[in-house]
């Protein structure tokens, strides 16, 4: 702590060098066991360069499938036979604060079936994930802070309840850099669904999420400014040579400038990106078998693209699938689950077959779960849905050093509140960072007088989620 104060980043460039270490100078020094040396005036490194983690990592890449709106745990992965028994009866304890007025308990309209070695119950909504359940670790005891979408979406993705903090993907790329220098390290695949903004907030803008529409078939249209409609690559190479000569001559005249040298470099990378990026986004190149495995529609395109990106070395991919907010009628889960079940199962299976699952962590999250009691409030046409539930919900993990086949935590008999082993969103974040070889307390960024972290002032690594 104190060292940090003695060695504040004194220029933006210096600050960049600090970022390049992935954590504050002080902690770096502590880690390296030597005092911090005066910064050398050399080039201000590429902020995307891979950086060593704090300790040996299990996972190198992350794919988050974010189900926005609130996945109902009691209709998916947290089977509650007592709900059948008490269907239509009042909750036997005081209903905690949710968003809307709520009513009596409601059984799940979906049937459950046992899958895998442990006979884990999974509902009919997720047959494909069910068949692969042994590859997943189910966390049934998630908790969050505020039962409304905005704050909870921010909490799940940034570790705080409001705008203005970096996304988890931004933190991870800030901490570890990324392996492929021709693609951004944090890519968000979205169909125009929400998930808040993907800004890097106070982290340098290089760490923000690059939004790519996954339902756009032409790969050249997926990244901003990726292709030139008015010149071919041969012409552009010729033009770039001219431009670089201008840059070098300027560099000579000013007697050297690290910033300009970095610009010369990154123009070259940009040129290569024009061919590399469309290639990686072009899923049409996959085999028929692979394409069939992922299916069509929903997020199949996104899941397949995520695998291709990770294969290339992209550090963090987030897929956003919206539409889970079924207050009026939980039957709506039929449509949304259909969109994601097969693609998620295929993604995990595919990664496994390619030997990539070991170091790729797949996370399936939602900002919160849903209540086992009926949603009554709001202008609802029917009372067959569920309200928001921050007191006990489910997320899935697979690969990346997470415990395959594990089930962690339990909720009460009705699936409302956590009964055992609560995992706060901060804890999940701490655990994800841990799997990546990052100490969540050391991955800090000084902004406005204090060291910020993804986990704010909380978070603990849940060792039981780790293989």
């Amino acid at each position, binding site marked *: 702590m104190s*060292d940090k104060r003695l060695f504040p980043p*004194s220029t933006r460039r210096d600050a960049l060098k600090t970022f390049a270490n992935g954590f504050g100078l002080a902690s770096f020094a502590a880690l390296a066991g030597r005092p911090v040396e005066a910064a050398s005036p050399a080039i201000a490194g590429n902020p995307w360069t891979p950086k060593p983690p704090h300790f040996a990592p299990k996972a190198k890449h992350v794919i988050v499938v974010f189900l926005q709106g609130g996945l109902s745990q009691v209709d998916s992965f947290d089977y509650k036979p007592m709900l059948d028994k008490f269907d239509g009866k009042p909750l036997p304890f005081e209903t905690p604060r949710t968003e809307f007025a709520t009513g009596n308990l409601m059984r799940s309209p979906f049937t459950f079936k046992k899958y895998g070695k442990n006979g884990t119950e999974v509902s009919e909504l997720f047959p494909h994930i069910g068949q692969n359940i042994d590859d997943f670790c189910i966390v049934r005891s998630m908790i969050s802070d505020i039962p409304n979408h905005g704050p909870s979406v921010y909490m799940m993705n940034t570790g705080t309840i409001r705008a203005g903090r970096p996304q988890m993907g931004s933190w991870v790329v800030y901490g570890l850099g990324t392996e492929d220098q021709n693609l951004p390290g944090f890519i968000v695949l979205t169909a125009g669904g929400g998930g808040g903004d993907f800004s890097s907030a106070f982290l340098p803008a290089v760490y923000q999420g690059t939004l790519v529409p996954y339902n756009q078939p032409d790969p050249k249209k997926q990244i901003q400014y990726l292709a*030139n409609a008015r010149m071919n690559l041969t012409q552009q190479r010729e033009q770039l040579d001219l431009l670089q000569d201008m840059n070098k001559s300027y560099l000579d005249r000013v007697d050297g400038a690290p910033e300009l040298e970095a610009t010369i470099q990154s123009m070259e990378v940009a040129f290569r990106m024009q061919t590399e990026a469309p290639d990686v986004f072009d899923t049409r190149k996959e085999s028929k078998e692979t394409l069939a495995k992922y299916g069509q529609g929903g997020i199949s395109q996104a899941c397949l693209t995520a695998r291709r990106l990770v294969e290339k070395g992209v550090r963090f991919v987030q897929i956003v699938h919206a539409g889970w907010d079924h207050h009026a009628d939980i039957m709506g889960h039929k449509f949304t689950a259909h969109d994601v079940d097969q693609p998620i199962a295929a993604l995990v299976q595919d990664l496994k077959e390619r030997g990539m699952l070991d170091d790729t962590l797949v996370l399936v999250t939602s900002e919160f779960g849903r209540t086992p009691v009926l949603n009554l409030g709001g202008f609802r046409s029917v009372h067959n849905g569920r309200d928001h539930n921050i007191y006990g919900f489910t997320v899935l993990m697979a690969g990346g050093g997470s415990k395959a086949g594990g089930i962690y935590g339990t909720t009460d008999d009705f699936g409302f509140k956590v009964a055992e082993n609560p995992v706060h969103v901060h804890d999940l974040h701490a655990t994800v960072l841990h799997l990546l070889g990052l100490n969540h307390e050391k991955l800090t960024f000084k902004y406005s007088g204090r060291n910020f972290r993804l986990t704010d002032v909380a978070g603990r690594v849940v060792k039981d989620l780790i293989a």
Partner: protein
Amino acid sequence: MNLVRLGCCVLVAAVSGSAQQAAEKIEFFERRIRPVLTNNCYTCHTDTKLGGLQVNSRVALLTGGNSGPAITVGKPDDSLLIRAVMHVDPNLKMPLGGQKLKDSEIADLKYWIQTGAVWPDGDAKAAVAPIASPKFSIKPEQRKFWSFQPIQKPAVPAVKDTAWAKTTIDRFILAKLEENNLKPVKQADKRSLIRRAYYDLIGLPPTPEQVDAFLSDNSPEAFAKIVDRLLAAPQYGERWGRHWLDVAHYADGSDRPDRRPVFLGYGQARDGYAETWRYRDWVAQAFNQDMPYDQFVKAQLAADLMPEKDRAKLLPALGFLGIGPWFTGDDVVFVEARANERDDKIDVVSKGFLGLTVTCARCHNHKYDPISQKDYTAMGGIFASSGYWEYNLAPEQQVAAYQNQQKKVKAAESALSEYADQSALRVAETLAGQIPQYMLAVRKVSLANPKAQKADFEKVAETEKLDSETFQRWFKYLTATEKLHPYLKAWDAMMAKGGGTDAEAQKLAEDFRDMVLKVIPERKAVIAANEEMTRNYKPDANEASVMLPGDLMQFELFQFKQQMVQKVMDTNHYYVWLDVVRGENDQSFAKKDGIFQYKSKDLLRFLTAEEKSKLDAMQAEVSALTKAMPPEYPYLMALKDEAKPVNLKLNIRGNPHALGEEVHRGFPAIIGKTDGDPLPFDEGSGRMQLADAIVQSPLAARVMVNRIWQHHFGRGIVNTPSDFGMMGDRPSHPELLDYLASQFIAGGWSIKAMHREIMLSAAYQEAYQASEANSAVDPENRLIWRANFRRLEIESIRDSMLYVTGNLDERLGGPPQNLKNPNFKKRTFYARASRTPDGLLTLFDYPDPNITAEQRSVTNVPLQGLFFMNSDLVNNQANTLAARLLQESDNDEDRIQRAYRIVFERPATQAEVQRGLQFLSKADVLFKQAPAEPMAVQAPRARPQAVNDEDEAPLPRASAPATKMTPWEQYTQALLSSGEFYYIN
């Protein structure tokens, strides 16, 4: 825990050997050790666990933190705790930022460790107890912290090289350099200097003619004249206004047509504000008019409370806080939302004007600075007493006329939609009577020809006298497998078995008709009952005041939506309604229309002539009323004191539901110069007193002169411009900072005078040049031995491109426009600043407008290269510039010379001309080889939904389909993409 207790007891026994001695040790601990730990260490080392260390139990000390165990029992000299409090290691001095412990206290700690480190209760819980009653007091050494000291005009230091130092500033700079044996590099050449001055003050480059004039002006005042001219230019306000807007975290609303705050969401960047820009323009004007900075500060906090004569001029300033964020909408938990709104205001006010991180004290006393949670709460009370308010800028009559007309339009619109709605329902009821005919026809067709096409349907519809479209819909519906309700099960089974008998089919079809005819009135009754319930809903006054601050209450009453329980119909009946009568746009249901659902034009064919003419008449009325709408009246988004100012209660651990003692609204004690409790304010909300207190504090002037310095040198004297506290940077030139601050105040808080003083110094006019000797001592140029190499901000990059090609629309002020709109050619300052900013802006480090920004980062990524290579913006400017060059001369050499003059403000060297000619001829060959039809590529469109789909209304297309770039266009694009264009040295 038992183990710990046991261990503790064993140890105590071993050391002391008697119960009485043990008791003495406990007393020693309680009287001499626990208070020391509590008072000096607990803030950081209990729950917060800084450095991983807790010091609130014996076991915690033995476990230690990141650096290992804090104590080694029996060995005080080996204990990290002792080493830390004795300041043995320069990097480990505890208490952090506080005064060293007294020698007697250290001796006690040593003795305690030596004699077994006895701690009576082994668990941490009991030990935390003392923290519950903290009496906040500011320690003398905290009061002595540099930034809280009064500004004193320092003596101007003596320097050896008196020839170099042109101004007082230079003597301060040079004194430091000489102290470190550094020599400033040479002065910048005139070309670099004028470019630097232009960008610094107006954010645009000089024209070749302006450069020529400066080069040929050999008078000693040549540069001063340039500075004065730039300070008088209206573009100055656009440039420096933007610097302030970064601090103010200014954001526009979206461009949706409904103008009022509809939805800011929970910071989710959704808002419908239309009049934000009046604040933005006020800021630019304030800079242009050189408004004294103290007035600038006061106006933004309390213009409504300032003397009457200035009020009209100053009121727009209240947008600083009035623009929000205000968190409204369904997504909001009221108490948290209000707390977060206040937090945002405390944050931007304290960091922006005072360089103090008061919001660090939201949950507990500030860990490093002498700011208590009470201080935070006191400031919060000021804002809790200041609600949102709109000041109309039009005569009352005009406002009333607008509002009345709007009411009329709304009434006519709702009458129209109600009538259309009822007509549609009547149609559905009529069609429902014919359900058996439709179902039987479907049976007939599907049995005969399961793959029936449109033509087949039309034929059958005609013979059976059915509506063809409706018939098709029935066919699709009845042959689909997925139906959520159970009422067609018998029908489906019959069809699966080959179609059953006619009588059976007739019976089942009539049953279904009867079901639908029952469902329609049932649904109507439910709708009517719910409308009645909503109409009669009255929020009680208390509830309302919690909901939205000030005048925002006029827009929405959302709370009742959450708690009001509507009447509903049977779920299965509702599925029938959805399938047959009317679909619902809700995530819970499939997105499809009901079979009988016909809208607007499609509905007409089912209506009688009378119904049609009534509908037409109503439509005509809506159009006429809308046409007669007067233009919207202008207004200001601002604040107003609540009728009854309030004080807030402490939020224990930052939780707005866990309330502690009430704190009178006011100002942090450290600057309010009170004993330890906040300085209380009593005049209304206290905003005016707050503003006065701010400008009277030494921080106000220091923080602002530092910001001015920052934007001239690329770095502040204090390099954390919004944090002048313990964790912030220390000034590189403290005396200079105070000199500038005192000049600032003495000069009537004139920002322009400050620019002049800074820019006329030799320090400002240094060249960007390498010096190995200097780099070895001061690699970061903290001491300013040379100029810094700086990239232009994105605003200047875009504006300059438009400017040098002659495309810039230089008109000042006005509502924002979408940056993606190719017809938007005003300065980037006027582009819509959404809370989720445009992708081009963020690509070049535009700060996140959700938080106040003290400085922008400067990052360098390939995606920026792609912008120069492929964006329409750069392509189009290159085309314009090429066209201009081709027109101005017919000789390529001359054109190259001209291009260099326009883009780089200098002539091209012979080598550069040759390289250009070489490129042009090569590019010409490739151009002729390239296929005539260029690839069709359009910019991608991926945005999070939360960002408002309306914001991205279809834009006019850039131009005709893209054509191949000519060699000259390629050449000019390279010029505009080169570092020399967007860096300044």
